[in-house]
Structure formats: structure tokens, C-alpha cells
């Protein structure tokens, strides 16, 4: 294997390792941190089923964002939905051997890259030109968008211009990563940049605002059922406190 292939192979596993361990830790932290009080925000579902539907609408349609700001919703939705389709289409590279027929249907998904780039461009433009959003932006907020744009554009260049890369080699490399049968990767600059930035993205996922992906599922204002009167909801630390308090009361007052 070429040196560059070895480096990229190593980078893949390193970034994937950071991603899995980092996200695992973060999700563990989110799930084990208690939510001591019922704080769902209106419009609040009164049943668990209602909450599930609310969450589904939130993560598939961005319901709250739609209510909030149509432009951000439009660009955000284009980007996320485009990204989803593109990611699904990329699966073909990671599956060793012949592809199931369903992948033929995914061929048009490549056009989703444009939706993704338009969405990202819109978000970046808003960040630059809307003074309120410029005010709240840190350098990392711009960089994140730029990075995704470069990933998208480099992908588009490889797919839609004459700068095609050898997809069979890409497939051999990518599926090799999955089945530990490592292969050389194509070394066109577009491809290397594309790949490198994806690795960077994976690695910074657990330490950046990309944590909104697991975060939304753990958001108490969105995932709690509004049933505070019907069912007693108490966190372990509060229960502990209550018990100690009751003992103390008994000692001082004799009764509650």
C-alpha cells in the first residue's frame, strides 16, 4: 500500500474511534443526567404516543423551526435532507461485492448534493448578512459550514464534472475499511480533500455543536410527557434528599 493510503486508512479508524467513543460517552452522559422536573414546552402532548409523534415531526420535518423562521427552515431542511440522501447513496462504497438492486433506485440521489450545497450556502449567507446571526456566530460556526460546503462541492466535482475519480478504487478502499481488507485509494486532490474533511467532521462530532444530533432526543422540553399531576416524577438525587429530609424532620419535629 502507498504511504498516503496507509495514512488515510489510519485516519479513518482514528476518527471513527473518536466518533464512537466520544458519542458514546456523550450519549451516556445525556441519558444518565437526571431531569428532576417536568418541563415540557407547549404545545405539549399528554401521552407517550403523542411525544413520540412530536419527536418524529421534530427530527423529520423540523416542526419548531418551521414555526420559527421559514428561511432558516428552508435552508436547514435542504441541507439536512440532501445530506441524508447523499449519505444513503454513499453506502454503495462500503458494501463489499455486488450491490442489492435497490441501489439502482438510489442513483438519482446524487442530485441531492445540490440541495445540500444550496442549503449550506443559504445558511452561510444568513450567518454573514443577517446582523443578528452574525452577532452570535463564532469562527467555528463559519468553519463548520465551510467545511461541509467543501465536502459537498468536492463531491459534486467528482460526480458531475470530468474530474471523476476511479469509483471502483474508491469502493475497494471503502469496503476494504469495513472488512479489514485494506486497499490503495485514488489520490486525486478532490477525493483526498473530500475524505479528509469527512474524517475531521467525524472526529469533531462529539466535541462540537454537532451534538445537536443526539441532543434533540434528550431535550426535556421536547421528550417529556405532560402528566405531572397524574404521575409522580422524581429524580434519584431529589428522592435521596427527600428521604434525608424526612429523617431530619422526624428527629426534630417527631413527624412530618
Amino acid at each position, binding site marked *: 500500500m502507498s504511504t498516503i493510503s496507509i495514512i488515510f486508512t489510519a485516519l479513518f479508524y482514528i476518527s471513527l474511534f473518536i466518533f464512537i467513543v466520544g458519542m458514546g460517552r456523550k450519549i451516556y452522559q445525556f441519558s444518565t*443526567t437526571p431531569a428532576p422536573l417536568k418541563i415540557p414546552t407547549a404545545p405539549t402532548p399528554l401521552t407517550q404516543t403523542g411525544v413520540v409523534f412530536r419527536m418524529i415531526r421534530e427530527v423529520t420535518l423540523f416542526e419548531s423551526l418551521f414555526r420559527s423562521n421559514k428561511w432558516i427552515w428552508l435552508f436547514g431542511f435542504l441541507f439536512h435532507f440532501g445530506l441524508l440522501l447523499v449519505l444513503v447513496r454513499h453506502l454503495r462504497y462500503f458494501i463489499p461485492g455486488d450491490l442489492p438492486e435497490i441501489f439502482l433506485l438510489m442513483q438519482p440521489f446524487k442530485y441531492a448534493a445540490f440541495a445540500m450545497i444550496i442549503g449550506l450556502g443559504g445558511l452561510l449567507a444568513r450567518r454573514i448578512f443577517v446582523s443578528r446571526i452574525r452577532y452570535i456566530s463564532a469562527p467555528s460556526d463559519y468553519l463548520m459550514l465551510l467545511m461541509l460546503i467543501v465536502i459537498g462541492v468536492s463531491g459534486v466535482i467528482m460526480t458531475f464534472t470530468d474530474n471523476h475519480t476511479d469509483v471502483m478504487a474508491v469502493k475497494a478502499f471503502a469496503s476494504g475499511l469495513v472488512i479489514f481488507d485494506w486497499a490503495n485509494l485514488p489520490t486525486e486532490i478532490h477525493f483526498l480533500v473530500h475524505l479528509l474533511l469527512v474524517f475531521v467532521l467525524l472526529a469533531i462530532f462529539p466535541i462540537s455543536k454537532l451534538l445537536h444530533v443526539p441532543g434533540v432526543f434528550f431535550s426535556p422540553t421536547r421528550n417529556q410527557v405532560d402528566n405531572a399531576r397524574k404521575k409522580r416524577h422524581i429524580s434519584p438525587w431529589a428522592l435521596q434528599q427527600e428521604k434525608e429530609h424526612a429523617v431530619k424532620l422526624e428527629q426534630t419535629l417527631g413527624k412530618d
Partner: protein
Amino acid sequence: MAAKEFDIPKLPTYIEIPELNPGVMKGEGPFKSSDEFQNPLGFPGEKVDNWKEVAIDKMGELKSKYRSVQVFLDSCVKCGACTDKCHYFLGSSDPKNMPVARQDLFRSVYRRYFTFAGKHFPKLVGAKELDDEMVDDWYNYFHQCSQCRRCSVFCPYGIDTAEISMAAREVLDTIGLGQKYCNQILGKALTVGNNLGLPEPALKDTLIDLEEEVEEDFGAPVKYPLDAKGSEILLITPSADFFAEPHIDGLIGYGKVFYQDGVTWTLSSYASEGANFGMFIGSYDVMRKAALRIRKAALDLEVSRVMVGECGHAWRVAYSFWNTLSGVGAGAQSTDEYASKLQDQLDHRYPQPQHIIEYTYDLIQRDKLNFDKTENDDRTVTFHDSCNVARATNMGGIEGGQFILPREVIKAVCNNYVDMERSTIKESTFCCGGGGGLLTDDLMEIRVKGAMPRMQALKQVEENNGVDTLAAICAICKSQFTKVLPKFDFDPYMIVSVHQLVSAAIILDKPQATHSSPDGQTEADAAEIADEAETE
């Protein structure tokens, strides 16, 4: 303090998002608390020497105790959806009053001390040191948030600035930078039993006077009982109801509804406060202490129902937190002795706790009350959804019940009702500008500026529909509106309690036989009540 001069915002036809004016609301914040008020709550009276260390430790503790804090600090992507949602930003144009920027005062410090990126690349991710300037900004801008949660409705992740502002205030209290208004009041509530510091004899006198007055005015012996052991209902209401205008007219209304229903009810001198400022300062412990007084009163007075008067954040604490804090509610497990002790005493044919609006609405539904709606014909009424009721609670056990029930009660007693513009009511309601512990004269500038969006919507229905009455079910809203309405050229007396409207229209004939006396309860009544309980 000499009142600071400031411009009263104009009321435009449409609310425009203002140009940013950085620092326009920079200041020293509200009056600071001192030993006298801080120590009883377990907080130091002035900024401690090692404040920075204490503050960082406290932040670490809070984010490990509250999932909301941890998840919200990590999840914001700075999309900007919330930037035009805060009434204080719309009214003041200070960018630090944009919800995300307000949170970022806290988040940037979190990043600096608790995250990899912030520790190693602070400039890149906007992480900031916790220094004197930052703490000053915290004190100032976290007391320009009324914890109304409007931003949370519009956030794609439900990030709730109220949670962050509560956490920040708790950190501030822990390092000795408490707010005088809230903490002084909490001292009174936790010792005397109410925010006004009204002791039992004074409260008793007030209620006796009230009974005389009501009998004189309405010709019926309506009672306002205090500490009547064995009553069916314990009413917990904001102490402002005992003497402030227009609050007291609401209290008169509650009494008349109880009288007409024939139910036995009582107030408690020990727990004579519905408000719970422990929520505003973000302290679970203080909030719980205040809530425990109600538990004790309910146990001591041996009531079977706990009811809450017209108060926004009180209803949030009661509806959403009481069951957790003190067991006032239902559904405790049999192993939960603490909660069961009280819950076994309560009558679960009714929701516990129940809002006075739910109670009145239920009586109206069951044709128990008769009204002469023409008594309110001189009014065209609109309803202000108080933020805590609207975004953090429910009524009637139906989705959106907290919006439906108050409106239905008003419509049952008034012929002329108009809603304000949809984007300013219900879950999108604009705060009155005085909630969250901001109802103090030293914060008058932000209170007036923050009231602008609500005043704007009110202006529209005044001009288009002739609205002359603003009804609310929150003591803070009522007090705030009384103060700010005249600043925007409205009549300060246009703000009324919902139960004041009920009071005006209710016909006080002889109490009918009711379910409070075992013999008088018809089977139909019992079945209806059981149905209610089930749907709830």
C-alpha cells in the same frame, strides 16, 4: 435610586425586528441582596473571595443534576431561530437580550471550563473566561429574562433559556450575588407564609373586612374562611389577591363561585402564598421549601382538594412541580410513603392540584352557575395568556386546555370577546414583561421595554375591535400591566382578573344542594365527576 430616564418604545402596526444596539441595556442590574436576605436561604451575603472557583464548581454540579442544562449547553447550533423571539430584545434592541446571546453568556464559560474545544481553542469556539466583567453581564442580563420560555417554543431543539437563566441565577446566589427583590420576598414567604409578610392576624382582619364588603355589595353572605380545618378545598392563591388591585376582585370572584357551589373551602395562614419565587432563582431546594408549606397546610387542615388561584408561575410550580416537590398530586407508587401519605388524603375524583379556572369551568359545564352576562356588556374583553400557564402547564386534561378553559370561562360571562393576533397568544404569547422575578421598580426600564410586544398586539385589538378590557390569570401580569399600561397610553384599570368578570356576572341565589354534603350529591353528579377524573 433616581429613576433612570428612558424612552418608551413606540407601538408600530407590525412588530419589526430592531437593528442591534449593543450594550444599550448594559447596567448594574437590579439591587443586590445582602446577608440579611441571603443567609437564611443558605447563600453568602456578598461576593465570596474565591468566587470564580465556587462558580465553576456550581456550574459543574448543576449540569450534572439537570439534564436540561447539560443538553442545552451542548446542543445549540446558533441557527438564529430564537433571535427575534424575546420580548426584551424586541423592546430594547440589545443583542444580549436575544435568547441565544443571553444563553451564550453562560455557554461560553461552560465551553471554556468544561469542553475540549473551549479549553484548547477558546477563540475558535467563542469560549470565554469567567471574569468580573462576565459575572456583571450575568447579573445584569439574566435579570432581563422573565423565564417566559417563548424562545423554547421556537427552538428546533427546545432549548429553554429559562433553564439557563435559572442555573445562572443559582450560580450567582451561590457566590453571593443574589437579587434583593426575590430573596427578600422568599425570606418572608418562608417565615411568615406569604410574599407580603402579612401575618395571620392581619390576614384574618383583611378577610373579615372583605366578607363585610362583599355582603354589603352583593347581598349574600359569601365567606372567606381562614384555617378552617376539615374543609373540602384548600385554596392556595398569590398573596397579592388579598389586597392588590385588580387581584382582590378575583379573590372576591373565587369566593362567590365557592359560595354558589356550596362547597366548604379555606385559605391557610401558614401557606398563604401561591407564588413561589424559588423557581425564579432556580433553586430546587428553596422552591421545595416553599412548596412544603402547602403540603403541611393540606395535611394539617385535612382537606381533600388543593386548588390554586390566578397566578402564572404558581400554577407552573403547582401543576408541574408540586407532585415532585411535595407530593401534592396523584400517582405515587405504593412504596412512596412520603407522597402516599398526602395523596391518600386527597380526593382523586378531581385533578390534584386543580386550577380555579378548571373548577369554575367544570361548574359551568355542569350548569351549576347562572350568569347575567349583560353585567359585562360595557366591556370588550381580550385575554392575555400568561407565559407560565400557557407554555408550562395544562388545564382540564385536554390538549391546549390551558388556552381553551380560560377563554371559555370568559365567554360564559361576557358577550364581547376578541383574541389578540395569533402569533402573540397561546403558546406564542408575549410575556407581560414583569415575570421571572423582574417585578421590581429597579428594573422598570426593562419591564416597560419588554412590555412593548404585548402592548402592540393590544393596541391592534383596541383600534380594530374596540377592546377595552385585558383579562389575565396571573398576579404578576396584573401588577405589571397596572404599571406599564399607562406608559403606552392605555387605561391602567383595563386589566382585570378573569374571576372579576365571573364575579360581575354571577347570580348569587341560594346555594343549591351540592356534592359537598353527602346527601345532596345526586348520582348524576357523582358520575360526571368520575368522568372528569378519568379524562384528566
